């Protein structure tokens, strides 16, 4: 990766190249040991003198045909790496080419050439390529998000209904118990609840898989929210309905089941739809307890590519899911309202 350069950018390969051109004949005359030059250059590099090291590396002469080229390859390779690390891609490439012109099979040089090519392609081209590469991964991860949403959607309304009925129960202790339940689960962050279930319970001897912990956390949290919504809906039904049901001889539960609760369905759709849309987004929180779902996958890819488009893609998938919900809840509301004159 291109990190901040450690030396003035002016001392570029051009200078290095001049040295190189000057030194070749001199070196040919003096015949100094190339390995010694390499060793001193390495010492410079190790002590952090990148500029000096680069100069020194370039002093290693090209081998005559039949001569040992080990020091030459090593020195050019190190120089190419330095240039690459300071984003001097052209110099880096020409150094690699130098090696490859003598040893076309050199793997290290080839690999660096590839990296230079990648580094020189514009960012947005790379990002667009990444989108194609990683999209299937994101889609697969969305499967887990959808699964969590569906399970919570199946469990929490049922649990919520029973909690709501318990809340309006005249039996004080039951009502109080569920008041506390709602108080705790609605009054603390879902993130904290997930941490508590996944990281907090094992010391108490209860170890849950990330999936179980995620389902439990989301289920408990959303049941608490839905219970309050359902309770509100039940209490919003005209008291006359209960009286009419009772006047026919219905018991409290018959009246609830046949008369009161069915009338809440239509009223429940908008607020519950809202909750389920929030749920889709809240599933992202389970990424913190080692669950691989859409957010986690996007985060992982983003951390290796720093590609903003990956996050945008994840956002698109979330938007697609919430949009489907918005539309279908609208339809459901209309269908449940057929008996209303509007």
């Amino acid at each position: 990766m291109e990190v901040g350069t450690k030396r003035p950018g002016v001392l570029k390969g051009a200078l290095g190249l001049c040295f190189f051109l000057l030194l070749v004949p001199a070196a040919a005359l003096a015949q100094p040991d190339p390995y010694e030059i390499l060793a001193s250059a390495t010492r410079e590099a190790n002590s952090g003198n990148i500029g000096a090291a680069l100069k020194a590396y370039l002093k290693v002469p090209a081998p005559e045909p039949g001569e040992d080229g080990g020091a030459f390859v090593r020195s050019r390779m190190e120089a190419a790496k330095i240039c690459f690390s300071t984003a001097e891609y052209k110099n880096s490439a020409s150094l690699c080419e130098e090696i490859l012109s003598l040893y076309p099979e050199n793997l290290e040089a080839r690999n660096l050439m590839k990296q230079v090519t990648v580094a020189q392609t514009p960012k947005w081209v790379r990002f667009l390529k990444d989108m194609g590469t990683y999209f299937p991964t994101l889609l697969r991860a969305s499967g887990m998000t959808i699964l969590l949403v569906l399970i919570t959607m199946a469990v929490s309304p049922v649990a919520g209904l029973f909690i709501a009925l318990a809340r309006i129960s005249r039996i004080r202790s039951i009502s109080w118990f569920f008041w506390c339940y709602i108080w705790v689960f609605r009054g603390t962050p879902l993130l904290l609840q997930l941490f508590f279930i996944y990281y907090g319970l094992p010391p108490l001897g209860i170890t849950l898989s990330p999936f179980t912990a995620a389902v439990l956390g989301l289920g408990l949290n959303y049941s608490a929210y839905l219970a309050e919504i359902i309770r509100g809906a039940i209490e919003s039904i005209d008291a006359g309905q209960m009286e009419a049901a009772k006047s026919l001889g219905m018991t409290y539960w018959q009246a609830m089941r046949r008369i009161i609760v069915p009338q809440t369905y239509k009223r429940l759709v908008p607020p519950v739809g809202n909750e389920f849309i929030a749920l889709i987004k809240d599933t992202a929180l389970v990424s913190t307890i080692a669950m691989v779902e859409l957010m986690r996958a996007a985060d992982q890819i983003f951390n290796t590519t720093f590609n903003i488009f990956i996050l945008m893609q994840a956002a698109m998938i979330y938007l697609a899911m919430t949009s489907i919900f918005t539309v279908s809840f609208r339809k459901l509301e209309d269908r449940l309202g057929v008996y209303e004159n509007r």
Partner: protein
Amino acid sequence: MIELVDVVKRFNDFTAVDRVSLKIDKGEKIVIIGPSGSGKTTLLRMINFLETIDSGRMFLEGREAGYRRDKKGRLVMEKQDVICGLRSEIGMVFQHFHLFPHMTALQNVMEGPVTVKKQPREEARRIALDLLGKVGLLDKKDTYPAFLSGGQKQRVAIARALAMKPMLMLFDEPTSALDPELVGEVFTAIKQLAEEGMTMVIVTHQMGFAREMADRVIFMDEGRFILQGNPGDVFSHSMDNARVKAFLQKVL
């Protein structure tokens, strides 16, 4: 058939029904009149156990019904299944209909027999269709309440109560929420029922109706029966009582 003895109902420090005794005989048609807040509706609701009495006694067919004394000697309502059994014998029609909005007219009428009496659906359906025909709404059987007029709603509500085959029908201001031109159709239905010999208690402000079909008219005020007797007597003696006079002058 049903007898209330010295029943009292208080709401906080307001006494809605103040030591009232009422005996309803089989086939009798009682009309209760009186200013609003006089306790008429509360009395009606007490007969159907929708209000708990604070003191007094209730008898059904000569046997004490609906209440017992707890260990401390306080009056408490019987358990739910007992009360539900009693209620299913008594039909009630409300001022604001209280039809079940999520059910069609037919489903409304079938609901009691199917859910409470566990009647087979086919049988309940036959009876319901018969009753809807009787109140002249067979063509509205698949209509939801929201699409019915007030008069139609109240007639469905009457059919719904009748489907339980009650021995007594209670009408709580059945025409007060209706437009004047819709009052007639509901009265016709009630009158028809009266002619068939149904026992009924009607709370109403319609004096003409009281005069026409009541066996007994009760004038109620401040939780007490001020005047009662056959319609002719009550209306002719009404001028003797200042409160009755004032009320009648207002409503007539």
